[in-house]
C-alpha cells in the first residue's frame, strides 16, 4: 500500500491555488486552478474501501483523473460536485458496474477490505453482493413486492426455507421503512408503488443481501421532500451497520446525512473533509464556489 501523497491540510481558509492565483475568483480557468493533490483528508485509518490513483476512461475520453480516496468503516460519505464531473462514474467503479459499459475502462488500485476488486480472481458476482447499489431512478423489477426483495437472497441462496426468506424480506422492508405500508400487499407489483415507495423498495432489495457497502447514486432526486426525509432517516439508521457512499446534488442532504464530504470537479477530486468543515469553511476555493452556489 502506497502512502498518501503529501496533502495540503492548511486547516484554515481556502488553500492557495498552485500557480495563477492572481486571476479573479469568478474566472473558472480550469487547467490552472486544480490543486496538484486532493486537499483535506481523503485517507482514513480504518478504511473499508481504498482507492488509489483511479483513472476512468470512456473510450479515449477520460472521466476521472487520479482520484485517491478512502471510505471508512460504517461511515457515510457524500460525493458532491457539478453535473458531469464524474460522481456517478466514480461510484460505479466501486462495484464494477462500469464493466457493463463496453468502452469504459478503470485504471488504478481499488480495494475492499484490502482485496483488489479488479483482481481477475475476484468474482464480480461476489463483489456486487458485498457492495450493493441504489440507483438514481427507482428501478423495481416488474414482479411482486415480495419477489423484488427476495430476488437477491434467492440468487445467492441465502435462505433455504420459505420462512427464512419471509424473515429476510420482512426485515429488509422494515429497515427500509416500507413494511407497514406494504405488508398487506406483498404479492402486488412493485411497480405499482409510488416513486418514493419504489425507491425504498429498491433500498430494501439492496440491503436484503446484507451488503457491507451501499452505494447510492442520487437516491432522492426523483422524490418529494417527505419521501426524501424518510430515506435520509433510513440512511441514518443504516449507517450503524453499513458503509454508505451517497452521490447527491442537495447540499442540505449531504450536510444532514454524511460524516465526510468529497467534492469532485471535472473528473478531479478537489477536496475531502468532515462534512461540517466542508460546508462551513472549505479548504479549497472551488469547493467554496460550489457550495455557495456560484456554479454547478
Amino acid at each position, binding site marked *: 500500500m502506497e502512502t498518501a501523497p503529501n496533502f495540503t491540510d492548511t486547516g484554515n481558509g481556502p488553500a492557495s491555488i498552485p500557480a495563477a492565483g492572481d486571476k479573479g475568483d469568478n474566472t473558472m480557468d480550469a487547467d490552472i486552478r486544480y490543486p496538484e493533490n486532493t486537499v483535506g483528508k481523503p485517507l482514513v485509518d480504518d478504511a473499508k474501501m481504498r482507492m488509489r490513483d483511479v483513472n476512468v476512461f470512456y473510450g479515449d475520453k477520460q472521466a476521472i483523473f487520479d482520484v485517491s480516496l478512502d471510505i471508512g468503516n460504517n461511515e457515510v460519505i457524500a460525493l458532491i460536485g457539478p453535473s458531469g464531473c464524474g460522481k456517478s462514474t466514480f461510484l460505479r467503479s466501486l462495484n464494477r458496474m462500469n464493466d457493463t459499459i463496453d468502452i469504459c475502462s478503470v485504471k488504478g488500485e481499488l480495494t475492499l477490505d484490502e482485496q483488489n476488486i479488479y483482481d481477475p480472481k475476484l468474482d464480480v458476482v*461476489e463483489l*456486487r453482493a458485498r457492495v450493493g447499489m441504489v*440507483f438514481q431512478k427507482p428501478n423495481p423489477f416488474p414482479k411482486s413486492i415480495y419477489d423484488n426483495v427476495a*430476488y437477491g437472497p434467492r440468487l445467492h441462496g441465502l435462505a433455504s426455507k420459505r420462512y427464512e426468506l419471509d424473515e429476510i424480506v420482512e426485515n429488509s422492508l422494515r429497515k427500509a421503512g416500507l413494511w407497514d405500508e406494504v405488508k398487506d400487499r406483498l404479492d402486488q407489483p412493485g411497480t405499482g408503488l409510488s416513486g418514493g415507495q419504489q425507491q425504498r423498495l429498491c433500498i430494501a432489495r*439492496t440491503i436484503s443481501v446484507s451488503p457491507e457497502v451501499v452505494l447510492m447514486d442520487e437516491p432522492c432526486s426523483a422524490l418529494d421532500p417527505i419521501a426524501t426525509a424518510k430515506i435520509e432517516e433510513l440512511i441514518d439508521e443504516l449507517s450503524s451497520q453499513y458503509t454508505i457512499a451517497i452521490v447527491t446534488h442537495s447540499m442540505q442532504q449531504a450536510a444532514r446525512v454524511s460524516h465526510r464530504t468529497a467534492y469532485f470537479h471535472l473528473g478531479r477530486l478537489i477536496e475531502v473533509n468532515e462534512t461540517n468543515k466542508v460546508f462551513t469553511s472549505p479548504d479549497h476555493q472551488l469547493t467554496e464556489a460550489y457550495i455557495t452556489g456560484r456554479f454547478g
Partner: protein
Amino acid sequence: MSKTTEQVRKTLARRYRAEKRFRAMGMASVLFGLMAVVVLFTDIIGKGHSAFVETYIQLEIRWDQDELYIDDPTDPDELAYADYDALIKNALRERFPSVEGRLEKRNLYKLVSSGAGYTLRDRLAENPQLLGTTETLWLLADDDVDRYLKLGQEAQESARLPEQARAWVDELVQEGSTDTRWNASFFTHGDSREPEQAGVWGAVAGSFFTMLVTLALAFPIGVAAAIYLEEFAPKNRFTDFIEVNINNLAAVPSIIFGLLGLAIFINLFGMPRSVPVVGGLVLTLMTLPTIIISARASIKSVPPSIREAALGLGASRMQVVMHHVLPLALPGMLTGAIIGMAQALGETAPLLMIGMVAFIVDIPGGPLSPATVLPVQIYLWADSPEASFVSMTSAAIMVLLGFLIMMNTLAVVLRKRLERRW
C-alpha cells in the same frame, strides 16, 4: 394583443387546415386498404364457396356377386379387387334403359365419379352381408355434373357436360335423385386428378410438418442469436458486419433460399426431394432474419435499468437474461416468430425449387414423407385445366387465409396475455 399572439392566430387556420388534410389522407388510405381486402375476400369467397359442397346422385345398387366377379365372398383379397364399377354401370343402365351405343354409354358412365367404386368397396368390406341384396345409395357425381348444377341457368351453356348428359342430369334433378352435400372429402383427401375427389388435407399435413420443422429450428436459433448479439457480443466491426448481413438476409428474395436449399441440402447432403424436412430447413433460413430482428427489437425494449438492478444485486449476465430479459421480451419474440411463421406458411417459390411441387396423392405421415404445402397446392390447382379446380383453388386459398388469420390472432392474444401489465 402581443405580436406573438397575433402571429399565432394568423397561422392557426393554416395549421388546422393542414391537420384536416392529413387526417383525410389517412382515412383515404385506410379505406383503400379496407376496400382491397373486401374485394379480395368477396372474390375468393364468391368463387370458392361452391367447393365446400358437392353433388350426389341416388342410384339403385344391386350387390351382385357375379357382376363383381367374386367367387369366395370371405376372401378379403377378392373383395378388394372386385369390379365395383360394374355395379355402378349396371345401376346407371337400369336407370336410363333407353341409352344405346358405346359412346353414349361412356357418357352415361361418366355421370358418377370414378372414385365411387372405392366407396362401394369400403361399404362392402364393412358389411359383407350386403352381397346379394339391393339398396338405394347416394354416390358422388362427376365434377362435370357438379359444375353443371352449380352454374346458374344462363352459364350452364358453357359447362363441359355433353348435351345428352345434361338431359339425364335434368331428369335426375326433377326426380329429386340429386343432392348437394357437405364436401367432407375436401378436408380429408389428398390431391387428385379428379376435382371431386381432391382435397387439401395432404397439403395441410405437409404444411403442418414443414412449419413444425421450421418452428423447431428457427425459433430457438433465432432467439439464441438475438440474445447473444444483444447481451453478450462485444460491439465491434465484426458484430456490425453480422448485423448488416442479417438485415440484408431479410431482404433476399425467397426463391434464392430455395436455390440454396437445392444446392446444399439436396445436392450436397443428398437429402430426399419433396420432403417437409428440407422445406422446413429452407424456410428456417428464410424466417431466421425476421425472428432475429424482431427478437432483438424486443430485447432492446427491455429497460436497461432492470438489467442494472439485477447486475447490481450480483446476478450473472446469464441470470439477468434468464430471469429478467427473456420474460419481458418473450411476448415480442413470440409475436415476431408467429409473423415469421405466417410468412413461411404462405411461401411458395423456395419450395418449388426443392421439389415440393410434385403431384402427391398420399397424406404425408411425417416430416420425411413426400408432401406438398398449401400455397403450392393452390399454385398446382390454379394451373389445372378442369373448371372445377377454379373453385377448389379459391377454397384452398380460404383454408390458407383461415390458418393465417388464426396465427395472427394467436400472435395478438399471446402478446396480450403474456405482456406484464405492471
